[in-house]
């Protein structure tokens, strides 16, 4: 089928948990809306003909690259043609692909452009600006594309897969984590129109789905984060197959460490790790997600079998002899057991709901889990394991 998507390249502001408000460029999905970070998720099915129109209202030209897609066509009103790098009259590269000009350019080139490609392979991909990408991508002109396999059917477990039936990629819940960095000096310079040297890029914030911890743990669509609609909390029940899609949309490479269990990386850059009949997937406890790369991983947390009837072999000391809520809050239930709640000291706020477990997911370059140096923050979120049968419809990307 044909999928038509309209994006607006525009500006807006992102919030950081330490109270900063940072000017961004990015994409929105409706005229008049502010830019969101990252851009709208695009979910299509293998074989779809995907047409994406970019309406540019930024003060400079912009464009879209689709790394991992083949045969991308561009159309600025004169008919579709193979998207090509653009050069000025002197042969200088001005854009890595056909672009939408800025409104009001006296040369009166169109300020919108339509890209079309056939989603040939299932997987996780990025879309990102190809014009002044050293500036426009860190400013926020990026987003993720999920391509479902042609036989995808969420109602049939053997066909609810990342890469198709019989590829060993079945999953119960899925999550997308797009990681990037923010150097406020870049954003401020763009906002004020002052000079900035990209070689002096020095991030002070690190993001998951455009948010810094602890905002990463909030739900999708929080009213207090109007331009950062996507949460980064992973939620599942014991024994479920959890698909996590990492996408590195920043400039740096990030070692993402998930507590709780190893993950099996089944695909990189939207390609199944298989060579004929030879399976090349591998397990990791830390996945170095490089700039521009994507990693699809599936794992299960099954626990160690402890319950009040089969108790842990140690005694938990009196709470007055323990630190609980040092950060001013805790996600602990007060009990060692899944689905049980215990005492929490007076004065400590527990955000634990029904005795679920929390495991940290974070960059292991630890300065990246701060907000401008203050822990906790940055590129950090949690995996929440809920008691069996309690979670409902969570972990669905549509």
């Amino acid at each position, binding site marked *: 089928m044909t999928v038509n998507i309209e994006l607006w390249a525009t500006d807006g502001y992102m919030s950081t948990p330490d109270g900063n408000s940072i000017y961004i460029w990015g994409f929105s999905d409706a005229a008049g809306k502010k830019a969101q970070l990252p851009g709208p998720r695009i979910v299509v099915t293998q074989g779809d003909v995907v047409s994406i129109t970019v309406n540019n209202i930024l003060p400079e030209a912009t464009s879209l690259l689709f790394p991992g897609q083949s045969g991308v066509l561009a159309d600025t009103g004169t008919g579709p043609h193979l998207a090509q790098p653009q050069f000025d009259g002197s042969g200088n590269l001005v854009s890595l692909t056909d672009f939408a000009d800025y409104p009001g350019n006296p040369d009166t080139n169109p300020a919108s452009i339509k890209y079309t490609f056939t989603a040939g392979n299932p997987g996780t991909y990025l879309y990102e600006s190809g014009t002044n990408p050293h500036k426009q991508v860190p400013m926020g002109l990026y987003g993720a594309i999920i391509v479902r396999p042609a036989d995808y059917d969420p109602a049939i477990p053997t066909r609810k897969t990342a890469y198709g039936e019989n590829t*060993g990629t079945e999953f119960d819940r899925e999550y997308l984590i797009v990681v990037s960095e923010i150097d406020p000096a870049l954003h401020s310079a763009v906002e004020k129109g002052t000079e900035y040297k990209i070689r002096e890029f*020095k*991030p*002070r914030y690190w993001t998951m789905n455009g948010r810094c911890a602890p905002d990463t743990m909030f739900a999708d669509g929080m009213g207090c984060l109007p331009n950062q609609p996507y949460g980064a909390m992973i939620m599942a029940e014991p024994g479920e197959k959890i698909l996590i899609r990492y996408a590195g949309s920043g400039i740096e*490479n990030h*070692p993402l*460490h998930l*507590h*709780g*269990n*190893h993950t*099996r990386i089944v695909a990189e850059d939207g390609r199944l790790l298989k060579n004929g*009949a*030879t*399976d*090349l*997937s*591998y*397990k*990791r*406890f*830390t996945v*170095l997600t490089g700039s521009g790369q994507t990693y699809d991983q599936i794992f299960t*947390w*099954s*626990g*160690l079998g*402890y319950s009040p009837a089969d108790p*842990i*072999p*140690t*005694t*938990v*000391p009196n709470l007055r*002899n*323990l*630190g*609980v809520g*040092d*950060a001013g*809050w*805790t*996600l*602990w239930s007060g009990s060692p057991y*899944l689905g049980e709640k215990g005492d929490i000291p007076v004065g400590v706020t527990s955000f634990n709901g029904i005795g679920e*477990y*929390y*495991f*940290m997911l974070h960059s*292991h*370059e*630890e*300065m990246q*889990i*701060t907000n*401008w*140096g203050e*822990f*906790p923050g940055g590129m950090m979120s*949690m995996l929440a394991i809920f008691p069996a049968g309690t979670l409902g419809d969570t972990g669905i990307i549509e």
Partner: protein
Amino acid sequence: MAVINKRFGATDGYITMPDGSEHYIFGWVDLTGIPDSEIFSYRGKAQLLGPLLEAKVGDEVYLTLTNLGMPVRPDLDDSHTIHWHGFPNQIALYDGVPEASISVPVGRDFVYYYKPLDPGTYIYHCHFEPVEHIQMGMVGPLLVRPADYDPDNPAYKTAYGYATGTEFDREYFVFLTELDSAAHHQVAVVQEYDWTEFSPDYWLLNGRSYPDTVKSGADLPEQPFSALVKANSGETVLLRYINLGYQQHSIEILGIPVRIVGQDAVRPLGMNGENLAYWKNCNYFAAGQTLDGIFTAPAPGTYPVLNRDCYKNANAGVTPGGMVSEVQVFTAGTLPPQAGPGQ
């Protein structure tokens, strides 16, 4: 299967670099077997790296963390935790993340329990304000032997079990961290440090900078892990690489490629059991990753170990230093059997 009782104290201390500079650290000290009445004499005696934690699949490990406080920073009443990095299917209580369970205040104890089910090279570290506590030195090596491990039977002296192709004669840690002396100084003098300014000036192998890396363990009591690799020609050597810094590193041994038989404490195996072990000359890996590499000691001689990011082979800008060490290969029969990892 054995019951292993260990007790690690968390406190502060000082380490030295080869240029004579001293640096304030947080770290671990082994209190196993020390009577309660004597543990306070270990305050201020943190070591870098922390003591080796070693267990076998199926063992029951009771690890007591005792927070001894910081004699140099009596104002600093930080709690601590122990996070076993990479323990599969862990429960929140034993995972050591303060935001997700508990931490251990000054003067208090907590017992962590582990029954490891998967062999390999792991790490432990404090997870309380980790950007500060890890850089300050609260890190240590952790290894799990396969259930059938038998050091007296060559076929069973392996990293991952009988017939896994991971037999070895000697084993060593290659434990990577960095030291940002400005950060350590700021912490010592009770000043805030902006961790986004992190910029190391020393790069450490097993808590030491070259040429201290090639000295014996006993030469630096606060940094007891030598980084010198020794073997007789023809012996099989297992290197347990750990990166617990905040940077990505590229470690090579000139003249000695290594076969990677484990990553993040799992064998490289496909879903149908495909053996995906491979050879590397340079091992490029990131913070929070571990590798197990095996090589056969070549002809007698000295083979330099270095960080191919050569600016990291320096001590505060002066070369040679930093992440440099040696593999020393001797004529067959020269060295007696190894007494333990890194010995």
